[in-house]
């Protein structure tokens, strides 16, 4: 085990130093480099409203203009998988989505686009999640993602199982994108958070399910264009029968919030948070370790500079 840990650390630090500096990732590189006394790597907030928690957290990280530049074409990618109302927590909280869009525009974003490849009927899911209305009210463009025509093929050279997949054009054509999942129990992957939210930017999900779901989730996260921020909505959480949930009885309201540039770290934090609601060993959420193995981030959040806020 010691040797494995050593190799793992070596791999991670190696990855951190060898990260390519390209658009949208330069900030990412900086934060990974930072020691615990430097900039904040991860913000966790408890007890506020979804939009308020985001305001607090982003202020701690130096404001959204650290991540969004003047004139950027931004994509905000919530989870809109299901034809469910916000109370049922099947989708990201619309208030949170709305606040993120507002801040992007304040930071000078040229346009903000919102979409998700839904599981249920996309028209109903967009509508009943409250996200379409909230996003449009905030000035964002809400685009469809229900047909293959909206996707383009991209190769994933670092992927272990998944070497190629079709990604939604909004992601491929934007300058930067923000990943806004909701924390939920998941019957197959055990949890769905930031990494699994990328299954909403791809076209063919069956391939994921038929060729080692947990590995494919990590593989798709090796996409060159990584989200500049991962913002986890844990205001309401589907505790059982996820990711869809059957009724309100599946939903709890722990009022949590997590944000980081490190997709593995933020998911690890959210998973540990979920573990208080219902037992969930980290090794059951195998895509976390798979992501770490692919140098997508670290599960070792104790050594990160974490800012905890209670509201």
């Amino acid at each position: 085990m010691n040797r494995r840990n050593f190799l793992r650390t070596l791999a991670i630090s190696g990855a951190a130093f060898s990260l390519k500096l390209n658009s949208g990732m330069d900030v990412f590189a900086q934060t990974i480099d930072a020691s615990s006394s430097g900039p904040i790597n991860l913000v966790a907030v408890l007890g506020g409203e979804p939009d308020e928690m985001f305001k607090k957290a982003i202020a701690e990280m130096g404001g959204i203009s650290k991540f969004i530049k003047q004139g950027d074409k931004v994509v905000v990618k919530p989870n809109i998988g299901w034809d469910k109302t916000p109370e049922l927590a099947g989708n990201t909280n619309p208030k949170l989505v709305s606040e993120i869009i507002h801040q992007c525009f304040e930071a000078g974003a040229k346009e903000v686009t919102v979409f998700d490849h839904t599981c249920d009927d996309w028209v109903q899911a967009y509508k009943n999640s409250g996200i379409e209305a909230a996003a449009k009210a905030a000035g964002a463009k809400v685009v469809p993602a229900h047909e293959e025509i909206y996707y383009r093929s991209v190769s994933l050279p670092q992927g272990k199982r998944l070497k190629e997949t079709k990604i939604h054009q909004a992601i491929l054509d934007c300058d930067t994108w923000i990943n806004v999942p909701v924390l939920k129990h998941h019957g197959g992957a055990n949890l769905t958070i930031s990494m699994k939210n990328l299954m909403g930017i791809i076209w063919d999900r069956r391939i994921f399910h038929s060729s080692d779901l947990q590995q494919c989730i990590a593989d798709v996260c090796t996409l060159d264009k990584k989200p500049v921020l991962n913002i986890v909505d844990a205001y309401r959480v589907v505790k059982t029968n996820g990711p869809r949930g059957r009724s309100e009885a599946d939903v709890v309201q722990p009022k949590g919030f997590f944000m980081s540039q490190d997709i593995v770290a933020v998911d690890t934090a959210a998973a540990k948070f979920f573990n208080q609601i219902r037992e969930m060993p980290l090794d059951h959420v195998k895509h976390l370790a798979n992501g770490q193995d692919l140098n997508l981030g670290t599960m070792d959040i104790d050594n990160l500079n974490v800012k905890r806020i209670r509201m």
Partner: protein
Amino acid sequence: MLKKLRIAVSIIFFTFITLYFLDFAGILPEWLNWAVKIQFASALLAFNFGVLAVLILITLLFGRIYCSSICPMGVFQDIVGWFSKRTGKKKKRYKYAPPKNILRWSILGVTIFLFIIGFPAFLGLIEPYSAFGRMIVNVFKPIYLAGNNLLSYLFSSFGNYIFYHVNVSIISIFSFVIGMVTFFTIGFLAWRYGRSYCNAICPVGTVLGFLSKFSLFKTRINQEKCNSCRLCAIKCKASCIDAASKKIDHSRCVNCFNCLNICTRDALQYSLSVKKKITVEEKNNGRRQFLLTSLASIATIPTAMAQEKTGLFVTPEKSSARETAIAPPGALSVKHLQQHCTSCHLCISKCPLNVLKPAFLEYGLEGLMQPVMYFKKGFCNYDCIICSNVCPNGALQPLTIEEKHATQVGRVVLRWGRCVVRTDETSCGACAEHCPTQAVKMIPFRNGLTRPVVDTEICVGCGGCEFICPVRPHTAIFVEGNNIHQEAKIVIDEKNKDLIIDDFGF
């Protein structure tokens, strides 16, 4: 004046019905549904006696107004005729033709006979509203969708997403061929011979034509004024004016009123019976009542008889793993669907998730082209009740959302041996993820893996599991149809105790 009114009413009905069929995005209001609910054969099969009574009354008062303006197939033929008039080299001339009584009454007889012995597909095939629906769905809808996709492409290249791309494909070759054949046959007849379909083939036309012989208002020829010049006969798209003998075959007149103004001697009039006739008709009430009653019994006997009869034909072909085809929610049973559906394809066209397609032999020969559920392109949305609420025939009974939740159209079958969790020992859970009732749910398996288990009692048969299952070519989970729809048990979850989390957990 009468002609203008007729054209206006026709355009309204035709436009409403056509757009209602084409509207895939649900933009049009739901109340437009009345335009299909008042179609003759649909009202008959739905036992919608109010509508039937009104249609029969209108016919007895004014003649074949239904054929003239309400029936979309009738108006379609007028439109074809209008084009033929404008594009033909020679000036379009109709001429009188003797009635094809043997043909039309035989077809009506055969239709009723086949219906009684449990083969309603023939009625569906030649009944005008349904034939029109299939024509729209198979011939015009793909064009409409392609147009939408072109607009969607143009608009989205300017960053506007008002229009969205939709999948254009032929859902059933058989139905497509039937739709095409209908379009070209009736189109050709209309192009060359006007309303010959209505007067030689259409069973509704035969029934209403018979009734309109006795209607109060009719187009009548003034015997003194008429000089048999045939101007009116040339205009008559029903070929029912015999100018030589100054007679009109009212059983074939579809009240287009094209003849009225054309007459230079003002010899044609749409009017009440000439004098005294009214009293004669009052005396004849007994006969009329007899006719009405017999018509009503003709309408009900076959359905009553069919209810006891099982289908003549045995299902010859089974689709993939399913033994029993799945009838849409609201159908009550495969049998009920078969006895009431005329395959107008409205439900198929309206299904937002492409879950319905016209059956080929899934229900057997009797159910040709009737809607059947399949899960290749999507699965039935738990909270959607569109199909059952648009059906004009009562073949799909209207459902509320609560009733839909309690309707089990089929039951889930898990083939655990094929499941990727078993064969590959990797996570999946796609089936349970899509299950609205958790009739499929994941339980701990080994090494942190979860495996699906099923509870058929609470399954509604929506096909979410079958649709998403990644195992190919045969899925590891599928829905077996219920011949008679069952009640799905509704699970009432106990509310979680309020959970207070006051730590981050790390």
